């Protein structure tokens, strides 16, 4: 069951970037995502996380997304989640990820 994670970073403009996640974002494969988040440059205004090639996410992966949202709140950049399939969207909704992100965004305004 050696599922891998690949995180590709692309830069749309000077202050916007995308992290595209492919494969399993879980306990055993977090390092590429952590590296991807670390590579977000100072002064970035918007980070898009593209889940269109995500195959599986567990609680550790969800925790990493929430931590990114907290980081965004501290560093004053926006996080947008795109390309989620209905199952992943439902899991995020059940756990309360969208509510936390909305609350942090409101707090940061």
């Amino acid at each position: 069951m050696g599922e891998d994670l690949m995180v590709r970073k692309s830069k749309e403009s000077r202050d916007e970037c995308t992290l595209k996640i492919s494969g399993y974002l879980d306990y055993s494969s977090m390092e590429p995502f952590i590296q991807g988040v670390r590579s977000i440059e100072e002064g970035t205004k918007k980070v898009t996380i593209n889940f269109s090639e995500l195959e599986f996410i567990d609680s550790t992966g969800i925790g990493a997304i929430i931590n990114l949202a907290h980081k965004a709140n501290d560093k004053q950049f926006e996080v947008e989640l795109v390309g989620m399939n209905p199952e992943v969207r439902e899991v995020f909704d059940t756990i309360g990820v969208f509510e936390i992100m909305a609350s942090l965004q409101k707090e940061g305004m």
Partner: protein
Amino acid sequence: MFRREMLFETKTDYANKTLEREIKLARNIQMELLNGSQPTLEKGQVTGYSLPARLIGGDYYDFHVLPNGKLRIIIGDVMGKGIPAAMLMILTRGAFRSAAESTQGPSETLTAMNKALYSDLRTLNSFVTVLCADWNPETNVLSYASAGHNLPLVVKSNQDIEEVPKVKGVMLGGLPQNTYKENFVQLLDEQLVFFYTDGITEAQNSDGDMFQTERLRKVLQQNYAEAVEDIENSVIESLDNFTENVQQKDDITMVLLKVHQGQTKVSSYNSPVLN
């Protein structure tokens, strides 16, 4: 040089053995706390089961018999795996036991638990999903609130199974001042409530296929008429057959409550029946 290497090896062996022994002791503590005594119900049955994917895990379930005769049930899943998750699971257990004593219902319990745990969970970049439910043996009403946890299934017959009416709430450790909504379901004679963590539906076989909710629903329906311990064993057996004993990534936890109509009372763990 040889002597130094020998000495180093001996020290490493000693450290490894000590670590191994301590993890085993930690596992024993966790298994004792988790799979300890379960309340006896008059004209009703409840059971719980938790199997960590590693030596120790982050899943949790517990029961608390309230002075008014209701049975409070909690099931939860700590973010992460292994020892770090197990440490937070113990913290969660303490928060539940303390909150259960002083709160009126599931939503109040979750609000109190979140208040108690938020700061620590945020500091540790972690969270816990839990579902808390109160079963009233007099009315057979199950009220419940969720902090990011999946909803239980109600098995009404061997043909009819559904999730309880929807309610949602943010996981513990998500928002500091969060409050939780409550919903309820009226249970009827012989209906079964199945609480679980996602380690069951996400159990994988060697091809990487997941057990999924559909297989779970099927095994619950097929064994609906059995006693809760037998239904629990059927779920475990079905999981074993599906996974063919492939090492699982996630802990597996379930709580089963089967109710009977009539004058049902909750017995405390060791004390006489409460009136």
